[in-house]
């Protein structure tokens, strides 16, 4: 039973990390990018390639994985979001980020192979540690640190306050002289780094697998919608809840109905509380 809880929390931490990446992008641009899960996938695949493939030391591999994630986040903003937002058609960003997500997934699949490959050990530890194995506690620890770090960044630094101002009202922020376009670019860089770091630390749990992106995009979104759009605490709670739920569903009914139950949770929460557990109520503009 304890195994179910620990592994559920660990996979929930990955969902929560994807939800955090969603939040960072959404706060400045009001765009929910389909590429979010692929940021984590890139962190895992490139981390494995740097360390196991090229034989680089682990800190360099970590920095490389974060850099690749950040780079792809930035490319997403330049190619998929900036032009589309400038034209202000509300649905087109969904199409452009979907196209980018498909392209990166296929490109990684062709280059890396379609089989999941093992991720190297990050910290020397015996494999007999059981529940205290690093593949469980590492993602949980890192996602809590990331959420706390983001919260500190928003509250204590000037750039964090610019992010908040842009998220509150981009037009008003622009009128006060905040370069909202640059803030948006930076938020995509930051969310790419968050995704890359999460994918790197969760690599031992999820393996370096090219098709991870789409499932993380979906499950991260469910965690986010359950927890409440825009709330980092909600992302953590939603991710943990979703992870526990799917772990228990697997334990009780077998692994076949995991996705069905996750979507059932999403529908239930959306019916009862459309804004999510910790989300702010938004007034619909007319």
């Amino acid at each position, binding site marked *: 039973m304890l195994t179910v809880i620990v592994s559920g929390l660990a996979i929930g931490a990955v969902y929560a990390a994807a939800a955090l990446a969603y939040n960072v992008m959404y706060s400045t641009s009001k765009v929910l990018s389909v590429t979010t899960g692929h940021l984590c996938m890139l962190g895992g695949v490139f981390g494995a390639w740097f360390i196991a493939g090229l034989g680089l030391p682990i800190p360099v591999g970590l920095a490389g994985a974060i850099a690749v994630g950040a780079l792809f986040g930035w490319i997403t903003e330049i190619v998929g979001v900036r032009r589309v937002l400038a034209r202000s058609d509300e649905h087109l960003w*969904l199409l452009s980020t979907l196209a980018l997500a498909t392209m990166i997934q296929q490109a990684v699949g062709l280059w890396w192979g379609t089989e999941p490959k093992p991720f190297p050990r990050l910290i020397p530890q015996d494999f007999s540690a059981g529940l205290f194995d690093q593949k469980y506690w590492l993602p949980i620890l890192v996602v809590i640190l990331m959420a706390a770090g983001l919260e500190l960044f928003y509250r204590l630094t000037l750039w964090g306050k610019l992010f908040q101002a842009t998220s509150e009202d981009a037009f008003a922020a622009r009128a006060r002289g905040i370069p909202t376009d640059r803030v948006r670019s930076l938020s995509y860089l930051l969310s790419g780094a968050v995704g890359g770091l999460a994918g790197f630390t969760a690599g031992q749990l999820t393996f370096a697998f090219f098709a991870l992106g789409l499932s993380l995009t979906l499950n991260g979104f469910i965690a986010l919608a359950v927890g409440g759009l825009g709330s980092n605490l909600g992302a953590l709670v939603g991710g943990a809840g979703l992870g526990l739920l799917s772990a228990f569903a697997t334990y009780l009914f077998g692994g076949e109905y995991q996705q069905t139950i996750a979507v059932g949770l999403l529908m239930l929460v959306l019916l009862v509380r459309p804004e999510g557990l910790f989300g702010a109520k938004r007034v619909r503009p007319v």
Partner: protein
Amino acid sequence: MTRGRAKWALALVFGIVLVSLPYWVRDLYQLHLASLIGAYWVLIAGLNLVVGYTGQLSIGHVGLLAVGSYCFAILAGKLGLDPQLSMAICGALGGLVGAVLGLPSLRLPGFYFAMATMAFALIVTELSLAQGDLTGGGTGLSVPGFSAPFDTPWGNYWLILAIGTLITWLTWNVARLMWGRALIAVRDSEVAAASVGVGIFRLKLTVFIFSGVTAGIGGALFASLQSYITPDTFVFEIGLFFFVCIIIGGRGTILGPFIGTVILTALPELVAPLAKFGTFFYGLTLLVVVLLIPEGFGRLVELAVARFSGEPHRSHEVRPDLVRLGAALKEREVAS
């Protein structure tokens, strides 16, 4: 008058070419390809009303296709029902599943809806793997062909052509009359559409159920063409492919998505290197179209036709009718 006649003549030639296709294609593979395009088109024509006209971005229609295919395989193959009757039941089941999917998810805004349909496609794959007794699980099911007179490749082709024509005609009627106007209004601004009395949710649901019916029928045709289906036949990329066909063809037209379907189905088959990069190529096409010509290629063709057919540019200048105005003013002066 002559323009109208030219259009009818063009449509007639096009129809003759399509009907006589089995007599002049070079081999059976090309006929199979044409049938496959037809089966895809049956689904895409219905999906076009949802994506192209109503603007609901459903990326998971492959789930409905899978439902139709499995239904056909089970009814016509396992239970030995009449294939044509099974196909009708597949359409009904597709509509039912479309209603079940649409009832909760169509209330959600754009991105939520897209994610819900994507989740639906994944759920169908999951269930088809889990319910091994019914669907054969990972090993899949073999699918029978249609019975006489549709049991030959060309008979099958004509059946698909007839159904495709019927559904194209239906969608054309929906699109050009009041319904189509309402759909476009919902796509462009839901608030404005609601304010002029369009029942948004009912409209969306009706169109979505219709697309479910066509997806069910398309699934039956698709399954009989594939002759063996497994859960791997219905990968998420096929759903993306349907979606890309409509977007590159242009939103709010019927001819555009049709051309998109023909080109995107035939191109990877005819140009070998594209087959390997198939899905990457779809993604790239989608990106280029969204960024450069968001109205799609259909709109480009329309613009070119308007340019070369020499139709005069209509101006909407409003001129005051000075004579009537003067008369009215004079009347008022007389009255006072």
